[in-house]
């Protein structure tokens, strides 16, 4: 059913029509905001402990990265986000779902001069994830606005409810940061955590900079697990940890020539 719904949309190109018709119908006046009774209006707010920034960013100190840490990062992330692990069920590479994963320097930075690379960089894998670009091509590619960049803090997010599985975003992302659920993810999740939803078959997913944790005043799971190798903060705040680090250390970003302006920096 899921697939038929998605392929239908893909073929018919009705997505825009559907969304607009739907929002037209239900969006006339959100009854919810007209209150059920009484004069007071219901409203939404954020928790006081929520962490805020105007542009979240991350600095990865590659000098502190080793294989074990890489694994730890991924585990921390994938576990709390109910990311399925299809290994053993299906080994097809395209079935793999990953939010943060280790890769070799030459793959992470294909445009960098890699001759006579320090053996440290040559042999260590670096963690890569969604770059939460300032100019994200995936957002432009999405026909239903399921992928969007949050105005308030610059995080590139996915609204899974809206994703129709067209995978335009995957084609648009230069970093391969997105995965598609070719299979039902639930059987491949060891322990389903009820603090985060799973996804359904036919939906794209990726790193969300732990937006749900930031809202609770917690750092991203990978940062927490990184033993100081990953530093997280507001790129627009000159006094933030990330900015301080970037002041001191030379850092590079992935595929800078594409003009996407990643928010993830690598100190090499």
């Amino acid at each position, binding site marked *: *059913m899921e697939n038929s*719904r998605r392929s239908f*949309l893909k073929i018919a190109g009705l997505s825009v029509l559907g969304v607009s*018709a*739907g*929002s037209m*119908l*239900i969006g*006339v006046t959100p009854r919810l905001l007209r209150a059920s009774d009484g004069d007071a209006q219901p409203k939404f707010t954020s928790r006081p402990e929520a962490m805020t920034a105007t542009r979240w960013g991350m600095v990865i100190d590659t000098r502190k990265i080793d294989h074990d840490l890489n694994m730890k990062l991924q585990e921390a992330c994938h576990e709390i986000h109910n990311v399925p692990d299809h290994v053993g069920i299906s080994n097809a590479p395209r079935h793999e779902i990953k939010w943060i994963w280790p890769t070799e320097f030459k793959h992470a930075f294909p445009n960098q001069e890699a001759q006579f690379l320090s053996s440290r960089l040559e042999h260590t894998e670096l963690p890569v994830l969604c770059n939460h670009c300032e100019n994200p091509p995936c957002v432009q590619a999405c026909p239903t606005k399921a992928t969007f960049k949050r105005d308030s803090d610059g995080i590139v997010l996915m609204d899974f409810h809206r994703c129709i599985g067209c995978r335009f975003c995957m084609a648009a992302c230069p970093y391969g940061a997105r995965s598609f659920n070719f299979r039902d993810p639930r059987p491949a999740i060891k322990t389903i955590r009820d603090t985060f939803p799973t996804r359904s078959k036919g939906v794209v997913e990726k790193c969300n900079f732990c937006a749900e944790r930031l809202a609770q005043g917690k750092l991203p799971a990978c940062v927490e697990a990184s033993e100081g190798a990953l530093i997280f903060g507001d790129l627009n705040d000159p006094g933030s940890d990330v900015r301080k680090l970037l002041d001191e250390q030379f850092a590079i970003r992935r595929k800078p020539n594409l003009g996407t302006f990643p928010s993830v920096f690598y100190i090499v």
Partner: protein
Amino acid sequence: MNAAYLYSLIAVVVLGLIAYAGVEAAGLDGLFGLVIPYVALLIFIIGFANRMLDWARSAVPFRIPTTSGQQKSLPWIKHAKLDNPTTTGGVIGRMLLEVLLFRSLFMNNRVGFRQVGDSQRIAYKWVIWLWLFGILFHYSFLTVVIRHLRFFMEPTPLLISGLERVDGMLQVGLPGLFISGVVLFAAATMLLLRRIVLPRLRYISMPADYFPLLLIIGIAVTGLFMRYYTKVDISRIKELTMGLATFRPAIPEGEIGGLFYVHLFFVLLLLAYIPFSKLMHMGGVFLSPTRNMANNSRIKRHINPWNHPVKTHTYEEYEDDFREKMIEAGLPVEKEPK
């Protein structure tokens, strides 16, 4: 009757108000929720059967199919088995294409004038709109009707929940948008606008053409409103409808709302209206002799039940009239003159 639609619009609005006021002001929930449904259903069944049997009572004296393809003739000439059927199978095929796909409407074209040099020429353009709106209208209506069976069956059959899933596959909004409802509303509105906007169509349209369309639009609008906007408690509604479907009619406790009764009243009006209106085309299409007969009267003799003898001019009478002249011209005659 250029303002014919006004009569029908007023009629529909008044009827809607009657149901609304009847329930909200006069508290006639029982009348609108329990009595009228059974009455309307009875009117429909009896009226529909009556109409069909009335048609059945009339004779079919001749085989008069409209042939829209090559006849069956010499074996090396390709016979159009569906458009000019000679067998029952062919007729069934032709009828199915007609009833399920509206084939005749599909080949509709429009006449217009084209300037060639200093004079005009007639030109024809294939137009698909009537077919498109027609088929969208009918199929979305059918889907909506079948979907509503969930209110009359417990447990809801898988087939119906399956249809709901397909109908709701856009998964837009909450409650999930059903494509059929929106399409029904849009197609019915287009069919109505067509009648109002196109001068030729406005000229041939009568109140009886606008009334059912407006009634159906009324049904669609009240339905869409209840589902997406004002909201109703559908558990209670199902309690009411299940009461009807199990012959234990009762008005459930608690508020259902006047809008629901307007919706229901419109539906029942439509149901009761069918046997007395052009909407009988749903049954009549199967009885149309130009489509439901095979073109085989040269192959197999068709019997006219009222075939009566007529006065003819026999050869004998003819020869009596012209015998002399015939003999003179050397034509053979049966009887020599005395």
